[in-house]
């Protein structure tokens, strides 16, 4: 519990100390003053944000920030800026943001109505949905088959929440991280593992025997990933969105998508026409 | 019971390389009261602790009440119920009342009924002169009282032999006598006693024999009169001059 108390106190103090400054200064002003845009991101969510083999902090989301958001912000503040990265996990990311420890959450955060009460989201930069990973030949083909079955999910994920609501008879086992959940699937502690489709494809691609596993089922939830910002900072949000919009329009976004999710990318995950249409619809195309 | 209560037969004992008992030959008759004295580290405690097998010997044999302590598979508990022991540090059990301390072994070892154990215990407290402290806890008694309870506790098993290892040396001077009186009474009642003590007055008055040890050996043994009046060895003389001058 010590860890808890420390974490809590840190957050509370950070929140209290940062409030007056935050109230006066918009994020863009702050970036202008300091020359730094601090993002909260992940270290272990390939291919979105992770530490690679040569110890570089890289990923699709990080590329989006570096190559699309950064120029847009630089244009607004009128000078070159630096990107600083900090680790932010699901329980810490919103407090980190509201306490000004970071300016932008750029990881794998799903844009949900609840979260919109606390933060603002950018345009959706990735679209996936929850599916199931099962042993090849499993009778489970979709969410309709999981009644009474043991299903692993990631703690704190929207997927667990939806399963609980839609299929209350499923026996949910929630693990804090992917490796443990996958281990439970491998050993038969659970019959299926549900997560965002992209995560499952990534897991399958990296597993020792990819052919032993199937990712099945239609998206039973929508998981649009967005970048989160402090609520009510319209100018900053406009700058971030402008960067992404420019990426969609110029095609640079799709180049980056190809780099990470194309046939030769880290996790092959071809973009369906529906997803592409969804993304373009955001910018009125 | 007549004859020999305790017989040491060429007993040798080592603690690692330290040779603490050397060729001890000694017998103590039933009903005899023997005082063992000698300088610190001479092996007195070890000697009497071998009798109830708190220490094991490496050579020779000790026969206690007809029972050899070196036979394999010896029923130690049974032997020990017949040999009571009183320690320098009382060793009452702090979490039990005086009465519970005395009743424990009869009930747990001899399976005596609670009522009978309590009756015996109260009688023994009477005998050692503190019937009114039956329900006190050891920490609330004086040292002299504690040691008297310890004697009562040992007697509760109705032993045939009593061993005392410096029973008065942890006591304040004004309490020594109350303990010695109890021991004297016990001797008068015919108990076989082996006492390590430097209370020479007690030795003179009560003991049938005084044994002087040094460096793991029995140097000299004789009746108290002779022992104090005409010690044979120089080491005994030296020792006596030291302790009697105090």
């Amino acid at each position, binding site marked *: 519990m010590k860890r808890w108390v420390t974490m809590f106190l840190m957050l509370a103090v950070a929140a209290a100390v940062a409030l007056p400054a935050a109230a006066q200064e918009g994020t863009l002003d702050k970036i202008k003053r300091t020359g730094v845009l601090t993002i909260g991101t992940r270290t272990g969510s390939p291919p979105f944000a992770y530490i690679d083999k040569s110890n570089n902090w890289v990923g699709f989301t990080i590329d989006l920030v570096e190559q699309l958001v950064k120029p847009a912000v630089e244009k607004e503040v009128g000078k070159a800026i630096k990107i600083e990265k900090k680790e932010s996990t699901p329980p810490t990311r919103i407090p980190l943001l509201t306490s000004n420890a970071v300016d932008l959450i750029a990881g794998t955060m799903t844009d949900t109505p609840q979260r919109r009460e*606390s933060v603002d989201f950018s345009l959706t930069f990735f679209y996936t949905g929850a599916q199931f990973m099962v042993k090849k030949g499993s009778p489970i083909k979709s969410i309709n088959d999981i009644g009474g079955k043991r299903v692993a999910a990631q703690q704190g994920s929207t997927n667990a*929440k939806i399963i609980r609501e839609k299929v209350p008879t499923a026996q949910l*086992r929630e693990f804090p991280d992917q490796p443990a959940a996958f281990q439970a699937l491998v050993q*038969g*502690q659970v019959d299926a593992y549900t997560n965002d489709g992209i995560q499952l494809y990534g897991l399958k691609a990296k597993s020792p025997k990819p052919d032993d596993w199937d990712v099945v089922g239609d998206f039973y939830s929508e998981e649009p990933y967005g970048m989160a910002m402090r609520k009510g900072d319209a100018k900053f949000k406009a700058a971030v969105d402008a960067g992404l919009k420019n990426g969609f329009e110029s095609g640079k976004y799709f180049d980056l998508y190809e780099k990470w999710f194309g046939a030769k990318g880290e996790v092959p995950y071809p973009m369906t026409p529906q997803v592409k249409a969804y993304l373009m619809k955001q910018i009125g195309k | 019971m007549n004859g020999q209560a305790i017989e040491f037969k060429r007993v040798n004992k080592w603690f690692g390389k330290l040779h603490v008992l050397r060729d001890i030959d000694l017998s103590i008759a039933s009903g005899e009261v023997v005082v063992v004295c000698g300088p610190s580290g001479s092996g007195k405690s070890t000697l009497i602790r071998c009798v109830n097998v708190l220490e094991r010997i490496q050579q020779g044999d000790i026969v206690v009440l007809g029972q050899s302590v070196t036979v394999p598979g010896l029923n130690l508990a049974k032997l020990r119920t017949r040999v009571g022991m009183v320690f320098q540090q009382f*060793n009452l059990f702090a*979490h039990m009342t005086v009465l519970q301390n005395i009743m424990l072994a009869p009930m*747990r070892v001899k399976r005596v009924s609670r009522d009978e154990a309590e009756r015996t215990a109260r009688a023994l407290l009477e005998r050692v002169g503190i019937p009114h402290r039956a329900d006190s806890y050891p920490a609330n008694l004086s040292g002299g009282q504690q040691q008297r309870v310890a004697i009562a506790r040992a007697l509760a*098993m109705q032993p045939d032999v009593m061993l005392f290892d410096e029973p008065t040396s942890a006591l304040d001077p004004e309490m020594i006598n109350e303990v010695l009186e109890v021991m004297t009474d016990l001797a008068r009642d015919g108990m076989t006693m082996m006492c390590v003590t430097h209370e020479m007055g007690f030795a003179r008055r009560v003991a049938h024999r005084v044994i002087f040890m040094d460096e793991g050996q029995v140097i000299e043994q004789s009746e108290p009169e002779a022992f104090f009046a005409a010690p044979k060895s120089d080491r005994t003389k030296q020792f006596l001059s030291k302790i009697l001058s105090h």
Partner: protein
Amino acid sequence: MQYQFKWSVLWSGQSAGWLLQGLITTLELSALAWILAVCLGILAGALRTVTFAPLRAAAVFYVEFFRNVPLLVWMFFWYFGVPPLLPRVVQDWLFNHGAEFWAAVIALGVYTGARMSEVIRAGILSIPRTQFEASLAMGLTVGQAYRLIILPIALRLIVPPMTNESLNLLKNSSVALTISVAELTFQTRQVETYTAKAIEALTAGTLIYLVLCLGIATVMSRLERRFAIPGLIARVGAG
């Protein structure tokens, strides 16, 4: 742009129910693990003080092995490592009947037991050896001496460090969330997920743990006073 506190998330919706469930699971898990830990701790602690070398060695092995490997590893060991050794039908039955919970109980109990045994051993060693000899000299067996004399005294002496270990056990029970046991920390995170109100959820979790710890400390100090040996342990300003 400021953080908007919204404490009502803690009692509106399902939050209160979840927190309560988490609390119950934490209590059940901790209580069962505590019983296991105390039994193992007494056994191993006592065995470490006996003269018979093989028993002592076994106890040393248990203590050093279990205490020096992180609890998280033990959770995984009992949950992932042990079941594959069982027949498939047994595994399936276990997985359908709270294997996570029992794995957590065993992991936490065995781990804490190893730590407690050190405390108990220290308690036993603080009792003069002559007390043990006095017990034997009266004809008690070694087992009786431990059961009737050494342990009752040692256990009274070690209440404060045992309180510490018990509190640690309670706090450590949150590690069970790694093998999907829905205990208090797990549920606190769940509240956070559903409401996106991290500070409120963390505060609730922290307060509940705090109250639990204070409760345990109070019970233990009552116990200490209740079983204090008259005249031996002077309690300053007590009751």
